[in-house]
């Protein structure tokens, strides 16, 4: 026996996700964006555990205070602690963003896969997508807020009802880009040999979709997920800012900004905090998406 000309690889094969992570690390903006987003999520969800002041606790003697050690972000016109309100508002805004994104993602991937995979459904589903793209979304969202607020409030209570309403209306009006991208990728994948091979050994359609198609369209889905969070947070804040979002005593970042504009001349810093929080969250998510797109694209990876 001669020795093997090529030595046996000593290192175990690297997984795909390790490569993705390596590429992601090299994108400095994405890394910072991801860290910032993680920090914001931790701050809004875990922050209230370390900060005992309640977001709704009124202390009228301490109203309109500037930043101090007791109230790092100051207090509002009713003496409520702004830091606690920022964390409570952030928890709502980020939750709305995440859930609405998940809903839009689910709808978009489902419709995209269906349209790409089943030829019969392609025409009708894509016409539906075009139709949704032709709808004026912000006006429609405002109209939906106006119409369904009362009945949902009656059923689920004011906070739950409006949460469900906002999440659903943002979800059903923002799935179209995902559906289009996913459909395009599925159309291309469907003609590939591995799909044909899987079909030839008798894999059912549902098996094909879950085993072979979905994992391969995961990267565009993940990229549109990050962008979806950004648009959902901005849309929710816009609705709150226009006075058609959450009820007044229920803080969200958009609502806080809207309330603060009344005291613009006396206390401009109160506008600054929520606006900065929205902008930073969206900025970090956008950078995260940018990095993910590069990291998940095998043509760029390893260069």
């Amino acid at each position: 026996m001669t020795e093997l000309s090529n030595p046996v690889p000593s290192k175990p094969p690297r997984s795909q996700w390790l490569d993705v992570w390596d590429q992601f690390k090299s994108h400095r903006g994405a890394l910072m964006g991801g860290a910032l987003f993680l920090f914001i999520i931790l701050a809004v969800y875990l922050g209230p555990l370390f900060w005992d002041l309640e977001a709704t606790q009124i202390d009228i003697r301490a109203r309109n205070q500037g930043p101090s050690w007791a109230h790092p972000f100051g207090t509002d016109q009713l003496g409520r602690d702004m830091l606690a309100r920022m964390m409570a508002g952030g928890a709502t805004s980020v939750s709305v963003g995440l859930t609405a994104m998940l809903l839009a993602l689910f709808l978009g991937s489902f419709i995209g896969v269906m349209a790409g995979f089943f030829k019969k459904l392609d025409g009708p589903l894509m016409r539906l997508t075009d139709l949704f793209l032709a709808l004026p979304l912000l006006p429609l969202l405002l109209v939906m807020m106006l119409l369904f607020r009362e009945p949902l409030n009656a059923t689920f209570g004011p906070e739950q009802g409006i949460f469900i309403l906002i999440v659903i209306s943002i979800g059903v009006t923002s799935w179209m880009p995902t559906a289009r991208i996913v459909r395009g990728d599925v159309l291309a994948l469907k003609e590939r040999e591995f799909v044909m091979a899987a079909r030839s050994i008798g894999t059912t359609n549902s098996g094909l979709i879950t085993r072979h198609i979905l994992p391969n369209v995961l990267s565009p889905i993940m990229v549109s997920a990050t962008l979806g969070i950004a648009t959902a947070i901005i849309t929710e804040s816009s609705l709150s800012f226009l006075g058609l979002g959450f009820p007044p005593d229920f803080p969200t970042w958009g609502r806080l900004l809207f309330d603060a504009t009344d005291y613009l001349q006396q206390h401009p810093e109160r506008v600054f905090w929520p606006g900065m929080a929205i902008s930073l969250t969206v900025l970090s998510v956008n950078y995260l998406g940018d990095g993910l797109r590069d990291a998940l694209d095998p043509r760029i990876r390893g260069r």
Partner: protein
Amino acid sequence: MLTFTIRRLILAVPTLLFISLVIFLLLELAPGDPMAQVPLTVPAEVKEKMRLALGLGEPMHIRFWKWLVQFFWIEPQVLIDNIFGTGLADGKLRVISWQTRSPVMDIVVQRIPQTLWVVGTAYVVAILIALPIGIYSAYRQYSWFDQMGTFVSMVGFSVPPFFSGVLVIVIFSVQLGWFPSIYDTTHVVDSWDAFVYQLKQMIMPVMVLALQITAQLSRFMRASMLDNLNQDYVRTARAKGLSEYVVVMVHVLRNSMIPVVTVIALGIPSIFGGAIITEQVFKVNGIGQLLIGAIQANDLPMVQTLTFIFAVLIVLFNLIADVLYGILDPRIRYD
């Protein structure tokens, strides 16, 4: 090309009809009562009559049909009447706003100039800023200018207009006192001072809108330039000995403008939608503010008509973008 345009125009009709039906049905579900503002001392039977006078007594499909007739048949007649002084629409019932009891289209026509001035200027300013930025960032890819451009457009994407608007109000109106924070639409430009004042009050809303549009357009311009800069014809042009200016500004730019022009066309209707917030921040009484006011006052005919106008704009500019693409790029033929 012509047959394609005609086919698309015909296809747009059922789309628009369907959209108007969706909007109508959505509004039908409205729990709000247009009589809610009427004092309680008004007896119930009088209220019922007022309801009938608003056209609420008819079944749903008849009201939808009436709205369609009013919007697509009577309103164009009113337009013709106004232009040529004829009397086609005399005595015919138009779409009436519940808030003001005057025809919706009259109010829209009053509000459109303000929106067009602010939004239109913002769009032109944004294009003028975005194109050079995009071109130069692509030409010097990964230079500090490109990195700055990327960062600024990321910020433009991320900062919502209701924050950037309020922020510039705080800085330039409250702290520095340079510009008025409220857009005065009754202002008449008749002298140099009045013109300067008009400029001052337009700067902030225009800049806030332009920042967003610039962010998107400059990214598109950059990507499109980058696609073209490495093409073979660019090498050929350089090999022929053309100057760098001619290569970039004539050969590459003309080819990269094709997708950008369509993106500009596609963006116009969404600008009307995006302007809703900016108009609200700066109190510009344009179409966006009209819509918000109508929604808060439960003025359904107004909401229906305005939303539909937005939909018409979207469909129309989609069509224009497709046709432009075909005209500008000879490789694309729809037939």
